[in-house]
């Protein structure tokens, strides 16, 4: 753990661990030597300005991008070690809400949630229907069960995507910009929902975002990535970093200041 962790770390067990991860596209390095731990039951925020590689880190954590270097442990298992079958098994623990929700456009909302269950479980159609209704009920989307994604608003797509991410009852949920493009009220509702799901289902949540109100409200741990040095510059809960971190870059981000010394866009 970095020395600038917030005091009074609660000592929950480590569920995921990134150790010296370097990510690159071709010769272009995105982030290097990234190390952090995600503890079980936490809501972990990956923060940073636009274009610093937040989404790329997430991509690598859900298995879409193999890191150039480093180890990625999920529950003690080395994720990138071993064959594809091993990764598929580990990935079954993941649920992902993509930035654009990425609902399958030729299926209805209900079918979107049902598909992973039909593919990966032996449940009968009646049980699947019950579980689909339950999951859509949890995100308040039951009324749209027979609608197609093209008929939904942005916030509804996000919530439907969240229901789909929960389809297989994963214990790790990844959210890429969950509240981007949502109004403050819908965004706050989504925050409540995320906390409720964490508390209710005991899931661990990794969230990529630069929506400050939402981060302060829900995240209890996190990491701050810097685009210039291409490496993490601060660890800790967003609200703790806001109050205690001295790094000018982090301060500017957390307080929405317009930095004079920085050339990059930070919000």
């Amino acid at each position: 753990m970095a020395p600038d962790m917030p005091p009074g770390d609660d000592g929950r067990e480590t569920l995921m661990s990134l150790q010296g991860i370097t990510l690159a596209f071709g010769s272009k390095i995105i982030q290097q030597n990234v190390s952090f731990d995600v503890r079980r039951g936490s809501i972990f925020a990956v923060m940073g300005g636009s274009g610093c590689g937040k989404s790329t880190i997430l991509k690598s954590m859900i298995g879409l991008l193999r890191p150039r270097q480093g180890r990625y442990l999920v529950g003690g298992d080395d994720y990138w070690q071993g064959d594809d079958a091993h990764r598929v098994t580990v990935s079954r623990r993941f649920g992902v809400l993509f930035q654009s929700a990425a609902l399958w456009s030729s299926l209805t909302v209900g079918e979107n949630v049902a598909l992973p269950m039909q593919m990966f479980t032996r449940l009968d159609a009646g049980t699947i229907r019950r579980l689909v209704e339950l999951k859509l009920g949890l995100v308040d989307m039951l009324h749209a069960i027979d609608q197609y994604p093209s008929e939904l608003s942005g916030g509804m797509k996000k919530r439907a995507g969240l229901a789909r991410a929960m389809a297989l009852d994963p214990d790790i949920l990844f959210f890429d910009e969950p509240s981007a493009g949502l109004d403050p009220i819908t965004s706050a509702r989504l925050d409540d929902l995320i906390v409720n799901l964490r508390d209710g289902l005991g899931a661990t949540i990794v969230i990529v975002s630069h929506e400050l109100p939402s981060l302060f409200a829900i995240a209890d741990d996190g990491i701050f990535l810097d685009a210039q040095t291409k490496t993490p510059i601060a660890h800790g809960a967003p609200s703790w970093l806001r109050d205690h971190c001295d790094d000018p870059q982090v301060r500017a981000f957390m307080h929405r200041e317009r930095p004079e010394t920085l050339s990059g866009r930070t919000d």
Partner: protein
Amino acid sequence: MERLVNTTDHGQPEWHLDNDGSGHVIVLSGEWIAQDGRIPPFPADALRQVEKGQDITFRTEALGRWDTALISFLWDLKQQATGAGLTLRTDTLPDSARKLLDLLPEQAAPPPPPPHRGFAPVTAVGAYTLDSLTEIGTVTELGAETARGALAAATGRGRMRMTDLMSNVRDAGPSALLIVSIVNFLIGAILAFVGAVQLRKFAADIYVASLVGIAMVREMSAVMTAIIMAGRTGGAYAARIATMQGNEEIDALTVFGIPVSSYLILPSILSLILTMPFLYLYGCLIGMLGGFCVAIGMLTVTGAGYFHQTVNAIALNQFEFGFVKSIFFAALIGLTSCRIGLRAGRSAADVGVAATRAVVVGIVGVIALDAIFAVIANTLGI
């Protein structure tokens, strides 16, 4: 999402309704994991023995691991309890389960009404006719608008960008040469084979040259090239425009006031119109070459004789006829495939449907148009 409440029990998920004197109690036990597929249903008449207005509490000491399976059961229970006028004491549930239960609505969604599918032939025919007429109108309008755009471009006031046109021409022309060569060479060779068998019986070997030449120039090269372009370029145009439709790119063009007809459709159609006639001429030559190869190999024909016969048989106006046909085919393929792309829906499947439809409409359209040309040519005696 498993929560350990009680690790001593690892049995089947079970429940029963008890009355311990102080009130009704639902006792939950075992492991409630959705993917094990053993969620017990909550029967509709289970709450009949409980009188209206009473409380139901929960006992969860024997409850093992659970996930959404338990919530699903509790939701069923909650709906029935509400219906029967009973109060669920959810505060006796594990905290996390209560929170999730609170998120759920009181009532599950009513099943959707079955779609109305009556057999109404008159309505169907009427709707189909109206649709077709509207479609013809729209395509004509689009064509006219594109033509206006072309006119404006010709006078230097247009909105078409030369780079778009050039990249479209490159895609439609040079990169199609190989497949046009292969198909036309084989068609020429096949015609020569078929002709050779018959003509040899009359010792009229040399007329194979006339047969191949006239067939290629009047019909085959133009039609075959058009079919290739419908499959290759028409399908690509439809898929590209349909994808743009799905990404709101068309909407963005409209908002900027950039006319879709001159920015997107005009370069597409123009590139086909510019390349297809030349592909046709090229196809004619390659077809004759195919016929020549077969004739030299199978028949008693000299190279010079074949060449001489070909030149004698084909009048220049035959080429003109084929050339003009190619231009019409190009316009037809370009216009229909762009129109099909524009009217596509916004999902991934719709892109596939649009591409397929563009190819089918293109091929059928080309052959139908060719038939019309044949009738006209016959009437005019060309």
